[in-house]
């Protein structure tokens, strides 16, 4: 399983990375500190598309909305296989509503991520792969 963690906090990316590595041994994790860095990973033709993207909403430079809107606007292989989970501090119902319009967003979680949530995300993915 390959996961891309996008958050402007390196400390958060490392903490979440720890949770996912605890949940699954065979896991490859990449991190990006904003949407632009994340796009460079996704658009790299030498790399396989991540199985899951954990995305923060509020980031400087290129935030979660910019990232999702850009993905929505372009055509690329396996787009229908994209699986994005939002991880944000925003409890604003308007954010939740707007995010639900992106069909490749499967979940909207409030920070902080817990180890049990990481486990659940990994388990759901493994079930879907069977």
């Amino acid at each position, binding site marked *: 399983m390959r996961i891309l963690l996008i958050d*402007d*906090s390196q*400390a*958060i990316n*490392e*903490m979440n990375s720890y949770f996912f590595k605890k949940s699954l041994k065979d896991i490859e994790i990449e991190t990006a500190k904003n949407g632009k860095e994340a796009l460079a990973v996704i658009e790299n033709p030498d790399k396989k598309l991540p199985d899951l993207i954990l995305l923060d909403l509020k980031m400087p430079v290129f935030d979660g909305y910019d990232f999702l809107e850009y993905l929505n606007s372009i055509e690329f292989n396996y787009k229908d296989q994209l699986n994005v989970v939002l991880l944000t*501090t925003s409890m604003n119902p308007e954010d939740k509503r707007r995010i639900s319009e992106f069909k490749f967003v499967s979940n909207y979680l409030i*920070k902080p*991520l817990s180890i049990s949530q990481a486990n659940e995300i990994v388990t759901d993915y493994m079930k879907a792969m069977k």
Partner: protein
Amino acid sequence: MSNYFENPRLISVEQKKLIPVFMEEITSDVRKLVLAINATDSQRCLELTHKISGTSISFGISILANKAELVRMSIQENSLERAAEELKGLRTVLIELQEEAKKMA
């Protein structure tokens, strides 16, 4: 002074190894926040308080997250003067955290 790093978010040895990463980032962000407040750059202040708050919550340091939220609320109410006051409280907690982190190193 309580031990802020003894909390349910930082249970394992591996998690405790992330404390220096957290401290380096938070210290740098608070420094940037001081500069942003001095420059009366409200937008940058909001970005930084949001980041400090989110990172602190992820490491179970809710007191620092609350202090950052107080600074953020002052900025949202267009009171940079009060934000500067609230910043003092945030910096006090940061100093305590730095001392605690040093003891753990």
